[in-house]
């Protein structure tokens, strides 16, 4: 059976990526991390479309590399203090008091390099998983699934995204036109000003026309507003936020009473979420062609979440091999369970159909 090209629900890709990122966060084993990165990249290359955001993976790979380098550099050159084999014996340069007892350089041990490398690789893997989600999930479709309370904000972002190319056009047009002004002498900053002011004025004029068009097409319709429900939701939300505030500080402080820690935090978050989910119910908006969260989407999400779940499980049963020792340095060992966790994400590529290629009709009218 051949599956038809179709878009997969963007939330499914995000869940998949988050699952992989969670898996990455539970290990510092470089083999597993590289495997996870490989899985993420492989699925992206197979399943991304031809949209501009699909090309963003490279940026994230570079960012990941940057993170690894920075992390290793921090470990090695800012008061390295590992043990074991010395790779490079540099003189230690103590800094004055104000620098919080930090010293520069000093002998660099193998464990410093490995610690930095493993840590950095873990963070890089998480970032690359996020990058994979960015490449795979269509952000515009993502905006269609926001709760109704966020409909307006979603619309702002949709407007921004669709006006964006017009602004870019407008900048090009103004730049060309400005070259015609006979007085291009004058002060240099004039150039910037001559660009920004017409573009901005044009954009703002446009916004008024847009608002009129939106109003004429029924934007902002509401059903009757149940005052009591609104009030209750308001109280709930505020109470939830207060609980979150208490909870945040509680979570960070071992000395806080138990009730003010996780329970308060979780309760607060739950209340705020309820408030968000149930507010603006009087809005009568419906959505056009929302991607169904079907079997495919479930399977994609499940393969990612399974990766996270298996890795957590592995952490419970055999934590030792997930974080290879650096003092003394040993070869990383990969158990079967974490290995499964690392590669199960590949299933996403198997269960999802190829992405539909949009018609390449990007002809720019002259």
């Amino acid at each position, binding site marked *: 059976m051949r599956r038809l090209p179709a878009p997969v629900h963007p939330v499914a890709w995000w869940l998949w990526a988050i699952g992989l990122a969670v898996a990455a966060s539970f290990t510092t084993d470089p083999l597993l991390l590289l495997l996870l990165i490989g899985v993420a990249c492989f699925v992206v290359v197979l399943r991304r479309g031809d949209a501009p955001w699909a090309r963003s993976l490279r940026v994230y790979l570079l960012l990941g590399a940057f993170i690894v380098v920075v992390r290793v550099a921090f470990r090695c050159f800012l008061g390295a203090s590992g043990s074991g084999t010395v790779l490079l014996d540099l003189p230690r340069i103590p800094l004055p008091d104000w620098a919080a007892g930090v010293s520069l350089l000093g002998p660099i041990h193998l464990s410093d390099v490995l610690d930095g490398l493993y840590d950095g690789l873990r963070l890089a893997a998480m970032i690359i998983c996020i990058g994979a989600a960015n490449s795979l999930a269509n952000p515009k479709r993502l905006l269609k699934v926001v709760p109704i309370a966020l409909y307006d904000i979603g619309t702002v972002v949709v407007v921004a995204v669709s006006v964006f190319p017009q602004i870019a056009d407008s900048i090009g047009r103004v730049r060309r036109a400005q070259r*015609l002004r006979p007085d291009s002498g004058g002060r240099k900053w004039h150039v910037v000003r001559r660009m920004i002011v017409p573009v901005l004025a044009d954009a703002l004029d446009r916004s008024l026309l847009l608002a009129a068009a939106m*109003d004429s097409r029924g934007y902002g319709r509401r059903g009757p507003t149940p005052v009591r429900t609104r009030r209750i939701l308001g109280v709930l939300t505020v109470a939830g936020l207060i609980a979150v505030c208490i909870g945040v500080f509680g979570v960070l402080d071992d000395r806080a009473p138990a009730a003010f820690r996780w329970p308060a935090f979780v309760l607060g978050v739950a209340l705020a979420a309820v408030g968000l989910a149930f507010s603006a119910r009087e809005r009568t908006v419906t959505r056009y062609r929302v991607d169904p969260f079907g079997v495919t989407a479930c399977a994609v999400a499940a393969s990612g979440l399974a990766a996270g779940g298996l890795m957590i499980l592995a952490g419970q049963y055999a934590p030792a091999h997930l974080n290879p020792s650096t003092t003394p340095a040993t070869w990383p060992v990969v158990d079967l369970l974490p290995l499964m966790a690392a590669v199960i994400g590949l299933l996403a590529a198997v269960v999802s159909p190829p992405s539909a290629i949009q018609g390449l009709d990007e002809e720019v009218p002259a």
Partner: protein
Amino acid sequence: MIELRDLSIRYADDRPPELAHVDLHIEEGELALVIGRTGVGKSTLLGAINGLVPHFTGGRLSGNVVVAGMDTRDHPPREMADVVGRVGQDPVAGFVADTVEDELAYGMEQLGVAPATMRKRVEETLDLLGIAALRGRSLATLSGGQQQRVAIGSALVTAPRVLVLDEPTSALDPGSAEEVLAAITRLVHDLGTTVVMAEHRLERAVQYADSVIAMPGGGVVRSGDPATMMIDAPVAPPVVELGRLCSWTPLPLSVRDARRAARPLRGRLADPSPRARPAGDVALRAKGVTVQYRERVAVRDVTLQLAAGTVTALMGRNGSGKSSLLWSLQGSGPRSAGSVLVDGVETSGDAKRGSTSGPQIGLVPQTAADLLYLESVGEECAAAGPEARALLDHLAPGIDDGQHPRDLSEGQRLSLVLAIQLAGRPRVLLLDEPTRGLDYTAKALLTQQLDTLARDGHAVLVATHDVEFVAGLADRVVVLADGDVIADGPTADVVASSPIFAPQVAKVLAPQEFLTVRDVARALGDSRELG
């Protein structure tokens, strides 16, 4: 369907009313055409129909506007949305989404239409307007006519009983405008939608109207049958002016009717007198100009000479290379090959930068406002040079120094940009689509301004779609197609025989080569003298 009862609207109590005691009745299924000069309150009248005025704009409304039984006093625009659909002048400015399908669905999403129904109606609307092939396309990649049809579709998709269009074709080229008007008339005939439309270019619209709502100014509104209303309407297309000149009754509204009425006239008329301005020496000499964007050749090996003291029109459909040629002649646009000499000096590249005499060529771009960046007319003039202010007063008297350039009318803004460009004393002046968005009065003023400039010894080149404007102004017409010059000659020779570029008067009086009503009037005067 639409009832205006003793309607008065003013935006501020210290300003004169936009509409004063208007009583108006528009029947169901009618195509009503609103005509009048810029600034007489056409947009206010149209905005009042769905309640944008005063709910959105602010202002004082007395009297009532009732559409399909709903009074706009009690119903803001969002509640009128399923009764009145509205389409603005610039389709792009009103787009919320970024693909055709999503844009069509937006209105229904707001009204809470069930997803299955939405899907069906979107498909129907796509077919109705013949844009099904565009469904997944990004709106930015469509042509102007396609964009405006999408905008009409997105207003229609909620099946409103009234469609209000505020100058839907004024920003379009003739082909696209034709496309849009055809779509509108089909709606009226097939769906029975009531349409109220304001339109500048009456030569295209008036023949389709069932009734005409004329706004002579001062907030007064009169309405009636097109043929009677056009007798003394404040603005009129050439065919109507010809009818008025010859006192034809009933007044013809289309070329077909006028041609029938003109049968006796054609015999009486003497041949038109040639009216070319005396050409001076050659001011601009372009040879082998080629413009290439990567694979696409926009202008191919064009050779062109512009004589001082003449006006040349550059015509051709969208994308035929008109703009590319203008920018390349001016010297700031790309040019792959060829040379452009003004008084023997190359216009582009280092030669221009090295010279101290200022630009030899002025160019007024399509969106003239792009040139303006200061906060007042006075500052703009001062920045342009000492002569700009005097030039502006000469071109369009009565523009206040303190006004914000963006608050000026389209025509005034064009005059300002013209003055700024002329302040550098260029010998050659290029204009790209200057008539876009101008009404008859502003166009007449522009014609007069350019005529004066030509008589002062400038060489003027105007890229335009507007055949009537060309007929009234140009000495010579150059037609571009796909980057090549396919016709070049005196206006009458090029234009009169062409089915697309011929002005209405030429169509009426063919085979005699009259281009404008003024030519006819002059010929009539002559023939009367002779007789």
